[in-house]
C-alpha cells in the first residue's frame, strides 16, 4: 500500500489485470447491451450470435452466464 501523496490510482476495484478473454467478453457485452437489449435472454443470444463463448468453448446458457458473471463480478 502506497503512502506517498497523492494517491491517484485508476483501478481500485480490480484484483488483477483482466485477461484477454475478460476484455473481449466485457467489450462484447457492451455491444450486446447497446444493440440487443438488457434482458438476460438478449445477452445470452447476443453473445452466442457473436461466437464469444464461455472459456470452455461452449455456447452460453442463462445458467452458465449467471455463474460466470458471479465469478467475475463478485
Amino acid at each position, binding site marked *: 500500500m502506497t503512502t506517498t501523496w*497523492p494517491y491517484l490510482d*485508476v483501478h481500485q*476495484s*480490480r484484483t488483477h489485470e483482466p485477461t484477454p478473454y475478460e476484455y473481449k467478453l466485457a467489450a462484447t457485452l*457492451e*455491444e450486446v447491451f447497446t444493440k440487443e437489449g438488457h434482458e438476460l435472454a438478449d445477452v445470452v443470444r447476443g453473445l452466442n450470435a457473436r461466437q464469444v463463448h464461455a472459456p470452455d468453448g461452449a455456447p452460453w446458457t442463462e445458467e452458465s452466464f449467471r455463474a460466470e458473471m458471479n465469478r*467475475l*463480478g*463478485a
Partner: protein
Amino acid sequence: MTLPVHDTADHIYATGLRNQWHPVVPSSFVTPGAMRKVTALGEQWLLFRRSDGTLSMLADRCPHRGAPLSLGKHLGDRVACWYHGVEVETDGTVSSVPGLPGCNLEGKKLVTSLPVREVGGAVLAYFGDERHPEPAELTLPEPLTDPEVDAILCYAEWNGPWRFAVENLLDPMHGAFLHHESHTMYNGDTTAKFRIRETDRGYFFEKTDQRGVNFDWVELCRTGVDWVDLTIPYPPSAGPGGPFGIVGMVCPVDEDRTGVFFWRYRRVRGWQRDTWRFLYKTLIEERHWQVLEQDRVMLEAMPADADQRENLYQHDLGVVRLRRMYRAEAVAQASPA
C-alpha cells in the same frame, strides 16, 4: 479531547468543520496489525489496527515529548513511541513509561483518540472540539446501507482546498461543459435554470427543466457527516439497472489538500449486479477515472484566491448557499461558548 477551541474561524474554514464526522482514508489503507500516519483537518493522526481488525485513531503525538507515534512500534493492542518507549493504548491512555516505572503519566489518558466507524470501505472519524467530545449522531447515506443497491468506492487525493471539491459537487452545470466529452455527460442542454429545494437534512440544487439527462441535480446531506447524492445516466452499453449514482464525501486534509471519496452506486441485484461489477472493473472504472481527472485538473489549477475574486450568476446559488452555511458554522465554532 479533541481539537482545540482556540482556532480562528479562518483556520476552521480552511481545514474543515469540527464537531462532525469526516471520511479519512479507505479502510484498506490500514491492514490488520498495521499502523498508518494520516493528516486530516490540518492535524497529524495515527490509524492503528489490531490483528483482529479493530481500528482506532490517535493523535500522532507522544504525550511525553511530542514525537510522532507513527514512527513507533505496533505492540498488538498499543503503540510504543520510538523515542523513549512510552506505551499508549488505543484509547489514548499511557500504559507504561519503561524508563521510569511508576511515573505519574501512567494510567492517564493523555492522547486524543477519535471515535471511528468503517463505512462502505472507508474510515470515518468524529472530529470533536474540546466542547463537543461526544460523537455526533451519524446517519449513513442510504445508498451505502440499502441491500438493493451496490456501491463501489473510488478514492483520490487532490491538491486543493476541501471546499473547492464540495463546491464542485454543488455546481451541476459544470458537467455539461467540463465533462462534455465523457461517456455519461455528453447529452442535454448547455443552458439551464436552477432552484434550491430545502430538505430536512440539507438541500437540493437542481435544474428546473431537465432531469435524468446529464448531471442535473445534487442533494447536499448533513447527517452527522456531510455528503452529496446525485445520479448520472449510463449509456445503454452499461446494461440493466438504469443510471448510476454517486455518494460523495470529502476529507479536509489540510489547507491545501483534499481526499475525495466517491461511491459509484447502482440499484442492481443478481446477475445484473455481477455484470455491472464485471464491466466496471474491466472497462467502466477507467472511464469514470478520466472524468474525475477532469475535475482534478481544473480544481488544482484554480488560484488559491479563486473564491475571493468572482462574478457569480444564477447557476452559483448552490455554491453561495454552501459557503454561507460553512462560513457561519466556522465562525460559531471559533466563538467562545
